[in-house]
């Protein structure tokens, strides 16, 4: 998120760093042929499912894709970090779908 701050401030001498971060992010999605907005949609839907079973710390959720490696033909990975306080307080109703 550092680029958000370096961005509009017009501070000299930092724009290369901003360029590098933006480039790495955009290429991650280019290479995976994924639209960058997908993460947010996915995060919301995952959260809907998780909430049914777990007491999730919503502010702490991080969902992202790790970069793949073209040379190693390594696929990218969906990485989700979901802090959990415990099981959902009210038991989920099994009848609900």
């Amino acid at each position, binding site marked *: 998120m550092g680029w958000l701050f370096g961005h509009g401030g017009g501070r000299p001498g930092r*724009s*290369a760093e901003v*360029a*590098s971060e933006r480039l790495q992010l955009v290429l991650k999605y280019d290479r995976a042929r994924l639209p960058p907005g997908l993460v947010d949609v996915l995060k919301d839907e995952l959260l809907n499912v998780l909430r049914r079973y777990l007491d999730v710390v919503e502010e702490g959720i991080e969902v992202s894709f790790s970069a793949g490696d*073209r040379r190693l033909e390594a696929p990218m990975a969906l990485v989700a970090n979901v802090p959990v306080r415990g099981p959902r307080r009210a038991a989920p109703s099994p009848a609900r779908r």
Partner: protein
Amino acid sequence: MAGRAIVVTSGKGGVGKTTATANLGVALAQMGRRVAVVDADIGLRNLDVVLGLENRIVYDLVDVIEGTCKLRAALIRDKRVDNLVLLPAAQTRGKEAVTPEQMRDLVQQLREEFDYVLVDCPAGIDQGFHSAVAGASEALIVTTPEVAAVRDADRVIGLLESKEIYEPRLIINRIRPHMVRKGDMLEVGDVLEILAIPLIGIVPDDEEIIVSTNRGEPVVLSNHSRAGRALRNVARRLEGEEVPFAELEEDGWMARLRRLISRTSRAASGRG
């Protein structure tokens, strides 16, 4: 033995493909190689003006493909350098006038007679790109240290792989050392790490390029241009020579002082 067919490509336009192609062609010819430079940017002919050969065009690439003239008749000899010819693009036709198969045949014919066939690829990744890369077995990617150019280069590297052109080599063009030092320009290392292909040239931003293009005299013909020197080094590396990447070092007393200090301290630590 058949010559090497190398496509010069970038994805993004305006990063210096044509200038690189023209100058590498001249540099290789000066080194005694037989070189054909091919303008594959059908409809937007430009390699001719960068080389200063625009007034001598009679036939073009599409004429050859359509059988209007023999290949030999369309090749323009550069009178300043021995062994360099240009096959110009058609100006009044579109990209669809050439298919990848036709291009492959054409490049194959040129490879019989020349040591190097350098193909100047159009910007973009549509049909013009597919035709331009069709005959090539090697590629040079030209990029500038900017987000948009590097992104497009990455896309093109992937496309080349799907055409079985592996290990394209990278020319990073228009580096401005003082901006890099201030942290306001992507460094060579940043770009290399992201694109993960071997480097073959670092070309400093140089006003001499504009002057030489104005005149139609390739910058490698001039001895006092930094970009010209860098491009000559690319040609030597293509020939397999190991040339250290020293182009980023600026001329002037500050740079010389800095170099001297680093050399002295390296020597000192080496002895100690």
